[in-house]
C-alpha cells in the first residue's frame, strides 16, 4: 500500500481550469457535477409537472403567464394539448427517475461520499468515472432536445409501452437514444462503484465495518449492473421497430386509425416489452430508495449519538431486498391477463420483499430509542423521511395483491404510492444529504433558519400534494388523464385536484429558501472544520473540502462505523480511524 502515499506530492500541481472543473477525473468534482446537473433536471421535471397540474386543476383553461410561450404543438392558444400533456407526463417521469433522482443518489452522493467513506484516494477508475458523467449529460440533452422534434417529445409514458410507442412520433426515437446513453453511463458507473467498494477499502475496513451508506451503494450498483442491460436490449429492439421496420413488439393484424398495417411482418409480442421494461424498472425503484436509505442511516446515526440499531440486519435486509427485486417485476403487469399460478408467484414475492423494508424501517426507528436526538436540519428531513416512506411502502401492499390491484391499478393510488416513496421519501433524503455533507464539500455550513423554513413548508405541502391522490385513486380516478372531469367519477372528485395543484405550486414556493440558502452558503456560509457534526465515518477525517487525493494521511480503520457515546470515553464519538 505504500505507493498510495506518494500522491501527497501532487497536491500543489495546478491543473488548468477545464481539467479541474470540467473534464475532471476527481471523484469529488464529478460528484458535484452530477449533483448540480441533476438538481437542475429535478427543477425542470418539477416545472413540467407544475404546468400539467394547471391543466388538471382547471382543465381546458389557458395556462397563465407561460402558456403562450409553449408553442402550438404543446399548447394551442395557451391551452395544454392532449399530446402536450402526455409528452410532459412521460418526460416528467423519465427526467425524475433517470436524470434527477438516480444521478443524485448514485452519481452525486455515491461518487462524492463513497470513496471518502472507505478511505480511498479516488474511484478505482477515475477516467471511467469522468466518462460516466460525460455520457449521462448528452443522454439528458438528447432527452430535452426531443421537445423540439416535430410532434414533440416522447408521449407514451415513461414506461413507453409498445405498440403505442412504436407508432409514436420522432420524440420516442430520441427517448430511446437518450436511454441508451443513460444506461451506458449507469453501467460504467456501477462497475466503477463495485470495484471501488470492494478493492479500495482502507486497511482495517472490513465489510462489516462499512458504513451502511456504502452497503446501500454497493447493492444499488449490482442492481444497475444486472437489471439495466435487459432494458438496453429492449431499447435496441424498440429502436429497430421504429427505425428498421421490424415487428418485435407488433403483433400480426394491427389496424391503426382504420388502416390495416399490412407492411408489417407482424409476429411480435407487445408484452415482451413490458417484461423487459419492468425487469429493469422494478429493481430501478430500489435504486431510487436504497441510496436514500443509506443517506438517512448516516444522518440518523450521527444525530442520535448512538450506534444504529441492528446494523447487520440492515445490511442483510438491503442485500435480500436487492436480490428479491429481480423477481417481482410482473406485479406491474397483473392486469395484462396473467393467470393464477404466475400471479400467485409474483404477489407472494411482492409480499416477501416488503418484509426487508419493514425490517430496515424498524431498525431505523428503534435506533431512536435511548438516543440523544439533535434536531438539526438534515435530521429533520431524515426523521420526516421515515413516516413518509412508511406511507409509501404501506400503500404498496394493496397494489401488490392482485385482487385489490384490480381496482387500484393505473389509478392515482399508484401515483400516490410511489410519490410517497420518491418525493417525500427520496427527495427528502436528498435534501437531508445536501444539508449534511454541504460542510464537507464547501467547508461551510448551510443556514439553519432557512433550512428549517424549507423543511417545514416542504413537509406540509408535499403531503398536500400526495395525500389527496390516494383518495382520488380510491375513487377510481385514473392516472395519465388529461382531463379527469371528462369522466363522471372523476368530475365528482375534481375538488381534490385543485387542492393538489395548489399544494404543488406552494411546494415550489417552499423551495425558494433552499435555493437562496444553497447559493448564499457557498460563499457566505459559516466556515467549519473537518468534522462539524462530530461524526465517526472516514469522510470526516479528511479536510473540508478534501484535496485531490482526499486524505492527508492514509487512514487506517480500527472500529465499526457508528461508535457513538461509547461508555468511558471523553467525547461522545470515536472516529473509525482513531485507535480505540
Amino acid at each position, binding site marked *: 500500500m505504500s505507493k498510495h502515499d506518494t500522491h501527497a506530492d501532487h497536491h500543489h500541481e495546478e491543473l488548468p481550469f477545464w481539467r479541474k472543473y470540467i473534464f475532471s477525473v476527481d471523484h469529488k468534482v464529478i460528484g458535484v457535477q452530477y449533483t448540480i446537473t441533476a438538481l437542475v433536471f429535478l427543477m425542470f421535471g418539477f416545472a413540467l409537472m407544475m404546468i400539467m397540474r394547471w391543466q388538471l386543476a382547471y382543465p381546458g383553461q389557458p395556462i397563465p403567464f407561460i402558456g403562450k410561450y409553449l408553442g402550438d404543438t404543446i399548447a394551442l392558444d395557451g391551452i395544454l394539448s392532449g399530446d402536450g400533456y402526455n409528452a410532459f407526463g412521460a418526460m416528467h417521469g423519465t427526467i425524475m427517475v433517470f436524470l434527477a433522482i438516480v444521478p443524485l443518489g448514485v452519481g452525486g452522493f455515491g461518487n462524492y461520499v463513497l470513496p471518502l467513506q472507505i478511505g480511498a484516494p479516488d474511484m478505482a477508475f477515475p477516467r471511467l468515472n469522468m466518462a460516466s458523467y460525460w455520457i449521462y449529460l448528452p443522454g439528458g440533452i438528447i432527452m430535452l432536445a426531443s421537445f423540439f422534434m416535430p410532434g414533440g417529445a416522447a408521449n407514451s409514458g415513461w414506461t413507453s409501452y409498445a405498440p403505442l410507442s412504436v407508432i409514436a412520433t420522432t420524440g420516442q426515437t430520441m427517448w430511446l437514444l437518450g436511454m441508451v446513453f443513460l444506461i451506458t453511463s449507469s453501467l460504467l458507473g456501477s462497475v466503477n462503484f463495485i470495484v471501488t467498494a470492494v478493492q479500495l477499502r482502507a486497511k482495517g475496513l472490513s465489510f462489516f465495518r462499512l458504513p451502511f451508506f456504502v452497503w446501500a451503494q454497493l447493492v444499488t450498483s449490482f442492481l444497475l449492473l444486472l437489471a439495466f442491460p*435487459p432494458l438496453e436490449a429492449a431499447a435496441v429492439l424498440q429502436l429497430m421497430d421504429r427505425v428498421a421496420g421490424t415487428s418485435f413488439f407488433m403483433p400480426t*393484424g394491427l389496424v391503426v386509425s382504420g388502416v390495416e398495417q399490412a407492411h408489417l411482418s407482424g409476429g411480435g409480442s407487445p408484452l*415482451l416489452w413490458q417484461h423487459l421494461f419492468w425487469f429493469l424498472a422494478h429493481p430501478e425503484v430500489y435504486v431510487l430508495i436504497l441510496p436514500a436509505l443509506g443517506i438517512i442511516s448516516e444522518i440518523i446515526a450521527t444525530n442520535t449519538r448512538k450506534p444504529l440499531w441492528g446494523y447487520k440486519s440492515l445490511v442483510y435486509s438491503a442485500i435480500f431486498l436487492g436480490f428479491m427485486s429481480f423477481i417481482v417485476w410482473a406485479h406491474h403487469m397483473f392486469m395484462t391477463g396473467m*393467470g393464477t399460478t404466475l400471479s400467485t408467484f409474483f404477489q407472494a414475492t411482492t409480499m416477501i420483499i416488503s418484509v426487508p423494508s419493514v425490517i430496515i424501517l424498524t431498525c431505523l426507528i428503534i435506533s431512536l430509542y435511548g438516543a440523544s436526538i439533535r434536531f438539526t436540519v438534515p435530521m429533520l428531513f431524515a426523521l420526516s423521511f421515515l413516516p413518509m416512506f412508511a406511507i409509501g411502502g404501506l400503500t404498496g401492499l394493496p397494489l401488490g395483491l392482485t385482487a385489490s390491484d384490480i381496482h387500484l391499478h393505473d389509478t392515482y393510488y399508484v401515483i400516490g404510492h410511489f410519490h410517497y416513496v420518491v418525493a417525500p421519501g427520496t427527495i427528502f433524503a436528498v435534501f437531508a444529504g445536501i444539508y449534511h455533507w454541504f460542510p464537507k464539500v464547501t467547508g461551510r455550513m448551510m443556514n439553519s433558519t432557512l433550512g428549517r423554513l424549507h423543511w417545514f413548508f416542504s413537509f406540509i405541502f408535499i403531503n398536500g400534494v400526495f395525500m389527496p391522490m390516494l383518495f382520488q385513486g380510491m375513487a377510481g380516478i385514473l392516472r395519465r388523464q388529461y382531463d379527469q372531469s371528462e369522466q363522471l367519477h372523476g368530475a365528482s372528485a375534481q375538488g381534490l385536484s385543485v387542492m393538489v395543484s395548489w399544494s404543488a405550486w406552494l411546494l415550489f414556493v417552499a423551495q425558494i429558501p433552499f435555493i437562496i440558502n444553497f447559493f448564499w452558503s457557498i460563499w457566505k456560509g459559516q466556515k467549519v472544520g473537518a468534522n462539524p457534526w462530530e461524526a465517526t465515518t472516514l469522510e470526516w477525517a479528511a479536510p473540508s473540502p478534501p484535496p485531490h487525493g482526499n486524505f492527508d494521511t492514509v487512514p487506517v480503520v480500527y472500529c465499526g462505523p457508528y461508535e457513538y457515546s461509547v461508555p468511558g470515553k471523553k467525547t461522545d464519538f470515536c472516529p473509525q480511524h482513531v485507535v480505540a
Partner: protein
Amino acid sequence: MSHHEMTAEEVSHHVRTYLKVFGALLVLTVITVGVFYLHLPIVGAVVVALIVASIKGSLVACYFMHLISERGLIYWILALCALFFVVLLLLPVITDHEAVGTVTH
C-alpha cells in the same frame, strides 16, 4: 494463482493447453455442423446444439479466460449473474403458458 508470479515455463505450459483447447473447439464445431446435417428431430437438435455450445463456451471461459484458476468473490458474482440470466430465460415460459387469452392471428 496470480499471474504475476507466473514463470515463463508455466506460461509455455499454458500455451500447450491453449492449443489443445483450440483443437477441441474445432472438433466441436465440426460436430455441431455435422449433427445439423443429420436432421435430427427438433428437440434432439436443440439439445445437442446447446450442449455442444455450452461445452465450447465453458472451454473458452475456463481456459482462455482463465476462469478455472480464479477464485473468491468473482464466482459468487457470476453465479448471481447466471441465476438472473436463468430468470430472464424463464420469461418465455412464463408468458407462453400463463396468458389467459388466446392469440388471434
